[in-house]
């Protein structure tokens, strides 16, 4: 992930502020956890440019993320903040951090499995229930409350739960 290494290894203050912005629909993971924060540059005039990649083409959360980034960075004293959405390379759930996955699971959302790119739709055969930990679960619907989630149900604890789809 060469697009992030330079900034992620030596995080600037602007990066740290931007990295604290939460996903509006899953407010336990940050945009850094999700792997959608790609680059933050700042110049000596206090101007910050943030590059973010959308999760899904039609994801309605992107506008909120833009506003939250501007609000967080101007609140931290940066004078001019611009947010750019970059499409290439396309985001994949493989970029989600280990910490992000753990936070999702603790929140009750089963994290995504690895992506089998190029093949058929990746089928998660044994999604572990984030509530009771049982592997005895089944899919109710491939499409859930947001673009990125599918609806599953646990046969052990009888509770439904969201599963973050591999993309």
């Amino acid at each position, binding site marked *: 992930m060469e697009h992030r290494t330079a900034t992620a290894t030596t995080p600037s203050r602007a990066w740290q502020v931007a990295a604290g912005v939460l996903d509006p629909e899953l407010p336990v993971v940050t945009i850094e956890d999700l792997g959608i924060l790609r680059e933050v540059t700042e110049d000596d005039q206090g101007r910050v440019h943030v590059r973010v990649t959308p999760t899904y083409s039609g994801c309605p959360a992107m506008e909120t993320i833009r506003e939250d980034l501007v609000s967080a960075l101007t609140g931290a004293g940066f004078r001019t903040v611009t947010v750019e959405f970059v*499409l290439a390379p396309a985001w994949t759930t493989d970029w989600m951090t280990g910490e992000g996955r753990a936070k999702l699971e603790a929140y009750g959302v089963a994290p995504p499995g690895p992506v089998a790119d190029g093949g058929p739709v990746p089928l998660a055969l044994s999604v572990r229930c984030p509530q009771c930990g049982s592997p005895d679960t089944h899919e109710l*619907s491939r499409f859930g409350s947001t*673009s990125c989630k599918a609806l599953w149900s646990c046969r052990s604890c009888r509770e439904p739960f969201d599963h973050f789809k591999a993309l």
Partner: protein
Amino acid sequence: MSAHVDYLLGLADDALVSSQRMGWWISRSPQLEEDVAMANIGLDQLGQARALLTHAGAVEAAGRDEDDLAYFRDERDFRNVCLVERPMEDFGVAMARLLVFATWQHELYGALSASTDATLAAVAAKARKETAYHVDHARQWTLRLGDGTAESHDRMQAAVEAEWPWREELYDAGTLAPELVERGIAVDPGTLREPVEARLDAVLAEATLSRPDVAAAYSRGRQGRHTEAMGYLLAEMQHLARSHPGVTW
């Protein structure tokens, strides 16, 4: 209008008009999960349409943004294939349509991921991953209904018969400028026929449905010649923006 802009508008309008038809199903699906699924698929298509319309506006360089292009063009200026504009108020038809359209889009976006138009390639690479889910969803319903009861089988077969004649325009180079293919911007639609048809045939066979033996419908949406349904669709889709210009949420 340049051939390049025209090509982008065709792809954008396919996604936009299909999205509008998918939206009709919200609150009308056979089950709650399906309301959500169809809304999600329509939302993916809308996102693709927005990116493509924005890009078409940028290439055209006449100052038109995605809203100008979606809401303030008239019927003859829309370049979508007729397949997607026809009403689909029968669930079997909706799934047969999605099976055809998403399978075609998936192959197309796969090929366009290597387009020399870098923005188009980026949109396609992203959309390709989304359409894999759409294909899978349509396939599951086609199997369930086709290989279900006698009633569901007959209705799914009828739905497939209704949609099959409209496939031909998807493979027709029609007005596409050969220069766009030579420059690596566009994909020759004829090259999509074999992989798309192979995938469709496999689903039909698995769903115990027979491949319709039907003649192609007269379909010239890419040239702006639409079916009767298109005017009604646009009236509904464009009404708000035209009645209240500049309105925001």
